[in-house]
């Protein structure tokens, strides 16, 4: 029991009609670490996230979080157990102000509004969005919307946070800021599982990468080893 | 074996269902092509009924008035799209719901104001007799309305299935982006589809005047039935509409006879709720 990782996925399958988006997906995520999920387009990374977080119901397989089976539980129940996420295409509450949007997340563990607002402010300070707390979600830049999503996810005090392409579309400076932020999230004791395609970012950051191709894991190990693995290169570039 | 009134009721249910189908096919067409639930759909039906009544005053019976009404409603529909619905589609998601809802209130108010709440029926009905076919008695007017609806539904199906604009409509309702990549002008086709949908309703309005009376709130009654029909068949499914309409027609007529006339709509609404709770995509709809 004690040696089971924080998240353990076994034989996960997700079918959409004929298409098998996930086809026997296995994954272990160790507590307190940053694990990265990479793979070519259409490999099933976002579907894997959706199935782990509960946004979609897996067709088969097991997802154990903190030693407990969570596959097929409703989305909000899994969030309450301590899994938070961001989206590949940002999903902010556009009509709410920044602090209100984060308060929605903060209310999960702090039902009293005043406490939730205070906590939201603290998290906004942590992600560097405090100065924009009264702006509407829809008027933020892309980088700030991503920060807002991150703040909303963190405000639920998750044990595990799933980050889907948080770096996409960011300028190099914004990327560097994001890397710093990820490190400080790890320092808070939050485990990270992230989908990312900029390997450059992952190299110094990830403890372990899992490469997904056609719905199956084809490699698990250090980022350096992944970049040199012939199977991984073939998955990306096609057969030589 | 005595089968009682059942055959009579079934015929009557089918004839009623065909008219429902004609009204609903317009609703589902508009929804399929542009994702708009036209809450004012019944009010266009009401307008068409008044138009038919008006044309009756200058001597055209409903059958002769039908083509005039259809063309007028098509133009009206296309204009309403061009100058109103198009703007709503660019706004927030509730805009379309509230906009067509506002249209409902506006048109109903206008009818009450200009035509009063009186019931109007055409003064020159072309059919008045009753046919007796093997023990089944059918009003000629009801039969004519049902058969007229059948012909028009067949025409619409044929149009959607076998013509170039019909193909474009189907393409748009299936995948808007892919349709654009084929070179289909979405705004033009939307206006066309809205016009066509309203024209279908217009035709139904003309046929309804063979057996019904026009009054300002008749639209809401039929629209409610049309929503049920469309939801049963699956929103956007043209073929599903025929199935849904016949089902609703039969349920309404049989329910009215075997339960109580005043309760005839009860099983229809119950059927709607049962279907949306158990099979939200409708009987033939795709998810």
């Amino acid at each position: 029991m004690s040696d089971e990782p924080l998240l353990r996925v076994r034989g996960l399958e997700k079918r959409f009609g004929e298409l098998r988006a996930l086809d026997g997906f296995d994954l272990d995520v160790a507590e307190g670490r940053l694990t990265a999920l990479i793979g070519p387009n259409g490999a099933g990374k976002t579907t894997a996230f959706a199935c782990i977080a509960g946004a979609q119901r897996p067709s088969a397989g097991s997802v154990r979080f903190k030693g407990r089976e969570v596959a097929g539980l409703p989305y909000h129940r899994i969030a309450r157990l301590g899994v938070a996420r961001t989206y590949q295409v940002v999903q902010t509450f556009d009509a709410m102000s920044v602090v209100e949007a984060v308060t929605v997340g903060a209310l999960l563990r702090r039902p009293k509004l005043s406490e939730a607002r205070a906590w939201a402010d603290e998290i906004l300070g942590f992600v560097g969005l405090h100065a924009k707390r009264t702006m509407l979600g829809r008027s933020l830049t892309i980088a700030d919307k991503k920060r807002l999503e991150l703040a909303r996810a963190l405000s639920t005090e998750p044990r595990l946070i799933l980050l889907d392409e948080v770096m996409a579309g960011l300028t190099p400076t914004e990327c560097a800021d994001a890397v710093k932020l990820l490190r400080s999230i790890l320092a808070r004791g939050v485990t990270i599982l992230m989908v990312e395609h900029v390997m450059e970012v992952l190299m110094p950051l990830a403890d372990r990468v899992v490469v997904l191709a056609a719905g199956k894991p084809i490699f698990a190990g250090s980022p350096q080893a992944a970049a040199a693995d012939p199977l991984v290169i073939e998955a990306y570039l096609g057969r030589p | 074996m005595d089968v009682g009134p059942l055959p009579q009721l079934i015929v009557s249910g089918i004839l009623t269902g065909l008219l429902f189908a004609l009204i609903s096919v317009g609703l589902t067409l508009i929804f399929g092509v542009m994702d708009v639930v036209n809450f004012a759909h019944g009010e266009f039906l009401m307008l068409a009924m008044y138009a038919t009544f008006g044309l009756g005053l200058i001597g055209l019976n409903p059958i002769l008035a039908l083509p005039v009404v259809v063309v007028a409603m098509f133009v009206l529909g296309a204009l309403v799209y061009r100058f109103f619905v198009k703007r709503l589609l660019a706004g927030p998601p509730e805009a379309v719901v509230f906009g067509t809802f506002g249209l409902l209130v506006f048109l109903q108010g206008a009818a009450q104001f200009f035509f009063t709440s009186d019931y109007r029926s055409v003064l020159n009905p072309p059919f008045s007799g009753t046919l007796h076919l093997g023990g089944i008695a059918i009003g000629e007017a009801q039969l004519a309305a049902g058969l007229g609806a059948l012909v028009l539904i067949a025409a619409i199906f044929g149009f959607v299935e076998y013509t170039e604009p019909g193909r474009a409509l189907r393409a748009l309702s299936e995948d808007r982006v892919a349709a654009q990549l084929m070179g289909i002008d979405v705004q033009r086709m939307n206006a066309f589809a809205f016009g066509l949908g309203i024209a279908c309703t217009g035709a139904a309005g003309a046929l309804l005047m063979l057996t019904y009376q026009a009054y300002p709130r008749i639209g809401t009654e039929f629209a409610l039935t049309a929503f049920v029909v469309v939801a049963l068949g699956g929103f956007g499914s043209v073929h599903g509409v025929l199935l849904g309409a016949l089902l609703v027609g039969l349920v309404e007529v049989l329910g009215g006879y075997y339960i109580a006339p005043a309760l005839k709509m009860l099983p229809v609404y119950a059927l709607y709720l049962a279907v949306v709770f158990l099979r939200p995509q409708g009987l033939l709809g795709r998810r």
Partner: protein
Amino acid sequence: MTVQRHVAVMACVLAATALFTAFCHDQFLLSLAFTGLIFAVLGQSWNWISGYAGQVSFGHALFFGTGAYASALFATHHGSPWLALACGAAVAVVLALLVGFPCFALRGHYFSIATIAVAAIAEIVVVNTDALGKANGFELPILPPGLASLQFAGKAPYVLVALVLFAAAQIATVALEHSRTGYYLRAIRANQEAAASVGVDARAVKVTAFAGAAAFAALAGSLYAQQTLFVDAESTLGLSVSIAIALVGVVGGIGTVWGPPLGAFVYTFLARYVAALYGGHGRGFDLLLYGALILAIVSVQPEGIAGIARRFRART
């Protein structure tokens, strides 16, 4: 708006209405004020679910009618109209839970049409039930006037009672805006999927708000029944009532504290003005005007009159 601002506006509205009631002796104006307040409460309760949570209902008369019928029945058979108010609200809450649970699995137009269907079923059932007076409705017993019997000689006391209910609805709405449920409702409207990702059980939250809204609508229905001493299906459960309630909300502005009262004021004012101009023929012209108003508002300012006011404030 801050809470202090709400309190200030509230105080002004209450004082103005109370003064008007004290000094106005025109029974017709008073009965208009009563209607306006009832519609403000109805529009506000509709706003909870259709405005804040964005689930557009066209069947809200269900709860107005439930309150009217339940309290009328209770008052007829058991006496105290005050208990009847509570009874009407309780029945409406139970009904809201029963109806809301399956209906909130539906989204968008499927939900809207389901609300119409449920209200229509209720109307058909009432119209065909002997104990409820069928289509003719039934009259409430006339009791000696007084606060205990909730029956009064003039219209003014009714307005004051409605004013109390209105104040309660407004306070409840401000409280809702500053509560966990209020935040959750707005998050659901903004993005239900993202709300679920931070632990919001959308269906439970919506059902909760629905039950609260039903209670207020039922209280409005009970007061209405006590004032007219008569209930019938069409004027309490009919689709046209549901439409009028939504109209008040849309015209005033959804998702705001002061939108529905504003919409109710415009609604009753227009009706009165039009009736005065056109006499008995006015029926229909008011709808025409509201329809035109909605069309104009939706194409120009989808946030309703309250939205226009807010925009104006933001500019100055």
